[in-house]
């Protein structure tokens, strides 16, 4: 051991608190609801090799993404000897380690005297980064150039001097510059808070002790994961799962996950997965890796700290040119249709050998919806971005949770009163949908219905939903969860079903947009469900009488 266990624990905890303090700064001072209410941001401290020393990661898909971007920046764009005190580097390039254009990352070098000792980083999902559609979710993009402004790693601040020209380019290419610039300020303020925190720790413990602690922590995480993997019977476990479609061509997209566990390692091969699409339903390798790391860690042992060490026993084979490793200029904003499907497919693959550690399929998509208003009559144009979740997959010994974040994302909803106070929108409904949870010995979680009335004169709707056709699967005799759907004006005579990946639907005053999210899959045969749970579900109207009688076999209903 390089450091004693007491120092190791004290320093590691202190480093995490630096990252958390950075995160608190972003939360408190950001402007867009995407960051401040949905919590779509992360912060981290890195060593000079781009390895994470500490992170405050709220969103699993951000795992390792910043690390890959930083490593690419150091290798290909700005080598370590060109970083100066007071620099801040910005990038959002999915083909340089990023995932999609709205995720803007910033990095700041930490100098102790003249020596560069660490790098602080932040990632924030910005409301708009330009491109064809408001919110930069263009379902009809065929190349990344249509998705918005692509910023390669470049200095936003040079030795403390703001790069006004770069700011001007950004401002000229995005829809809500005040908000985006405000959020960028929150990100850069957090970097400075992080720098001060790191310097204080260095002063107290010395750079070498901190680096030794990092090596120890990496070794411990790697060792723990290997030990866990050794406990699982070796072998190959395979599953495949589907994305509904790419929004343009009406056919399923197949994702194949072949998992091999041997000698304390795990290998995930995507060989056989469908080729990349001429639409934004593509993931870069960075997105694919994050999905795999998250799934493996949460299934195998969620208590292992997620640092560089856990990546080492995991090997990924993702053929180039497929939807899990798309090549430029493929558009990528809809990457999460792919990454959620990867996670669910890995659950099914591993259910064969460790059924007690997985869940049936969860709702399986971030369900992004972007409502934009054209303004006029003295009102500014506006963009409202939100997501919605559905039901958790059921577990061997527990029901799936009703309408709760699972899997690759972890987002809070935006309070209805906050939306109504800010935008010309009015909510009509936010309620569970009975019978959407897949029936089973353990029931899948319920999906939710959310109806929003549009109260501007004109505007547009763009969405990225999925699992409207391919249902969330059940396991071991559990039934599928309900598929999702979207309907315009559901209670009127001219109600209209919408496609999961709706592009530029024209809103008019009074239109009601209704989404119904997916339920989670069930676990085990429904007839084996204990009577008290069926009766409680019935009393709570989470299942219908018909379902209690016909699916669960409850007598006397």
């Amino acid at each position, binding site marked *: 051991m390089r450091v004693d266990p007491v120092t190791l624990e004290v320093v590691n905890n202190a480093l995490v608190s630096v990252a958390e303090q950075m995160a608190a700064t972003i939360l408190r001072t950001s402007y867009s609801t995407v960051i401040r209410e949905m919590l779509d941001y992360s912060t981290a401290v890195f060593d000079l090799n781009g390895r994470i020393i500490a992170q405050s990661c*709220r969103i699993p898909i951000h795992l390792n993404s910043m690390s890959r971007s930083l490593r690419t920046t150091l290798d290909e764009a700005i080598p370590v000897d060109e970083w100066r005190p007071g620099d801040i580097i910005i990038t959002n390039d999915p083909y340089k380690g990023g995932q999609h254009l709205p995720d803007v990352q910033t990095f700041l070098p930490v100098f102790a005297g003249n020596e560069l000792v660490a790098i602080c980083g932040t990632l924030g999902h910005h409301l708009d980064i330009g491109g064809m559609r408001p919110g930069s979710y263009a379902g009809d993009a065929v190349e990344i150039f249509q998705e918005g402004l692509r910023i390669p790693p470049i200095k936003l601040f040079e030795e403390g001097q703001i790069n006004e020209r770069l700011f001007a380019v950004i401002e000229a290419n995005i829809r809500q510059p005040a908000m985006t610039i405000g959020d960028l300020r929150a990100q850069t303020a957090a970097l400075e808070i992080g720098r001060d925190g790191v310097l204080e720790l260095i002063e107290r413990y010395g750079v070498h002790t901190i680096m030794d602690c990092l090596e120890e922590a990496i070794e411990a995480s790697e060792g723990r994961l290997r030990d866990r993997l050794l406990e699982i019977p070796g072998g190959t476990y395979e599953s495949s799962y589907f994305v509904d479609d790419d929004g343009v061509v009406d056919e399923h997209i197949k994702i194949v996950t072949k998992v091999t566990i041997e000698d304390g390692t795990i290998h995930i091969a995507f060989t056989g997965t469908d080729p990349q699409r001429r639409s934004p339903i593509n993931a870069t390798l960075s997105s694919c890796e994050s999905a795999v790391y998250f799934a493996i860690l949460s299934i195998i042992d969620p208590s292992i700290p997620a640092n560089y060490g856990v990546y080492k026993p995991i090997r990924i084979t993702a053929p180039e040119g497929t939807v899990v490793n798309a090549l430029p200029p493929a558009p990528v904003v809809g990457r999460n249709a792919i990454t959620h499907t990867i996670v669910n497919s890995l659950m099914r693959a591993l259910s064969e050998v460790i059924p007690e550690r997985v869940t049936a399929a969860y709702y399986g998509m971030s369900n992004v919806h972007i409502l934009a208003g054209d303004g006029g009559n003295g009102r500014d144009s506006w963009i409202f971005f939100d997501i919605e979740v559905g039901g958790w997959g059921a577990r061997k010994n527990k029901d799936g949770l009703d309408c709760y974040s699972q899997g690759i994302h972890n987002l809070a909803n935006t309070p209805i009163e906050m939306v109504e*106070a800010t935008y010309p929108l009015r909510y009509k*409904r*936010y309620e569970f949908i009975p019978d959407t949870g897949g029936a089973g010995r353990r029931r899948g979680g319920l999906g939710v219905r959310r109806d929003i009335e549009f109260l501007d004169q004109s505007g547009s709707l763009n969405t990225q939903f999925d699992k409207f056709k391919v249902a969330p699967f059940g396991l071991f005799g559990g039934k599928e969860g309900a598929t999702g759907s979207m309907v315009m004006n559901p209670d009127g005579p001219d109600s209209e079903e919408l496609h999961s990946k709706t592009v530029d639907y024209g809103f008019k005053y009074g239109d009601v947009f209704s989404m119904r999210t997916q339920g989670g899959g069930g676990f085990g045969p429904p007839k084996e469900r204990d009577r008290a749970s069926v009766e409680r579900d019935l009393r709570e109207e989470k299942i219908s009488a018909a379902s209690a009688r016909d699916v669960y076999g409850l007598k006397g209903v």
Partner: protein
Amino acid sequence: MGAIRLGIDIGGTFTDITVLEEDTGCVTVAKVPSRKSDPGGALINAIERGLELAAVDAGNVTMLVHGTTIVTNAVLEKKLPRTALLTTEGFRDVLEIGRHFRPDMYDLMQDKPEPVVPRERRYCVAERVNAEGDVLQEPDQNEVSGLFDVIRDSGSQAVAVCFLNSFVNPVNEALVRDWLRQGVRGVHVAASYEVCREIREFERMSTVALNAAAMPLVTQYLEDITPKIKAVLPNANILLMQSNGGSLTINAARDYPVRMITSGPAGGALAVQRLGTATRQPNLLGVDMGGTSTDISLIHKGKLRMTTEGGIDELPVKVPMIEINTIGAGAGSIAWLDDWNGLHVGPQSAGADPGPAAYRRGGTDPTVTDANLVLGRMHPDRFVGGDMTVDLEAARTAIAEKIAKPLDMSVEAAAAGIIRIANANMERALRVSSAEKGYDPRDITLLAFGGAGPMHAAALATAVGIPEILIPEHPGVFSAVGLVMSDIRHDFSRTRVLRGEEISGDNLNPLFDGLDHEANEALERDGIAEPQRDLQRSADFRYVGQAYEVNVPVPAGSLDENAAADVIRRFHELHQQLYAHHHPDKLVEFVSGRVAAIGSTSAPEPQKHAASGGGGVAPKETRPVYFDETGDYVDTAVYDRESLSSGSGFEGPAIVEQTDSTTVIHPGQRARIDELGNLLVAIGE
């Protein structure tokens, strides 16, 4: 004999009593075991014990302030009475959906918090108010009447009403509340706008649901204890401690029980503030370390920091409360090794049962207390004043077997390591409450209390860069001392969004006048005469587009252009202090005005002690104690706290023992007793 005040703090294990004689400022404290099955009986016992110890007459007791964990425990133990919820049609599940953010990112076997009201008792009413406060649909009395039987048949003892946008215009909510009160007799009714008039529907709904659920419980409790108290204390005005550091009358406590949800730690924070005022120390960090957790509060320029973002057991409670940072590190925190031999302390705690290994009550896991015993900081025969004996060997064995041997360390090094990690956990929380909020630790005094606080205070202050620690006379019952110092307090707020030039006297004066009016009415109902009233105004500001506000003080009286500009300037300053950046050119938004209505109970200043003439004092013994900085046991003087009189001083290393706590003074530190009987320790560089 002058008027007497009693403070009674009923906790899970002990009930603490404070007796304050108003004319002399003399304070007497005592501790008796709590009785869970008969809290009322235990309360009366505590009163009698306090009166007997202080040798005062029951007839002279004019005020009894009671701190109770009855609401807190019912929430934590999920034993709240059956409750119903009425909400806007279409929004039946807001309470259960919550914000759907999971606190643990990875754990696939996690649960989500149980809603206070399950779906089967959540009912909808067709009604709607928009964001501007216009009534789009009035509730229909027939529809609501149709729910009366349903609610009765559900067995609900309380009903919460929470409609969308009621914080802007509560008219629909008030109507339905009144219909319910008339229509469903014997059931408690709470409307969200009365409990928490703030934006964000889920948080407000959670607050009013908890409030409603606690109403039957608190009402019954007060009906039980009030006559019993009146029988022994015929002249006492009975008050209850709230989370905001003020007290409530019995009537207000019945209507707003959710305000008492963190009243225990609030009593401690208030005591810190009051003692700071007496000792003229404007900036203090209060560190209350108990068995399972540590509560940290900050006093800045003599004022307590308040928050409206508190909660309990993952359920948000959006009422103003003293900002207290609670962390899961206490004397009972367990030290453990993960499967890769990483050493951790807590958050699991051995609590009081089975307790540390040294208690020999079945606990075999080493705890922070066991480590303190092994290092000689505590004496095994003088535990809680000698009422209890503990087993040093059991502590050694637990640390040796579970930590030292697997890590190939000595037992002493392992014990010192456990203390270092526990201290580091608390230290981070201290930084969150001080330096990270822009307060310079060099200007702060660390006031440590709770049974275990004084043992760790000197090391904590050193780590954070705080130059001085203060241990009050009775650290083990200090929270109860805060009770007798409390004033009556109500908080009122009104949300109205104003931007830029709209933030003017013309708009602000009516708003604050309205709040002042409500505040005066409430104090009038409490029987507080005008000279005893203090209305403290503040306002929540943010930059347009931000979601979180910064609370800024607002002067009393009519506000002119200059006063408004001053308040906005103060907002920029506070934003800079809190978040290290500010934007004087950005548009500022006023969100809510607040008025705290304080009814002073004119608590006297603490009594000064006669100085002993200063100089040295004799230790009662010397024993070896292990210190991290020496890396070994050092012969250490042990003093009896009771033998230390004002003006006396001595050098560390030293241990100060008293019935309710033990203070550790490290080598090179200097201690003295001030004129109020506090133990002050100067932390060397």
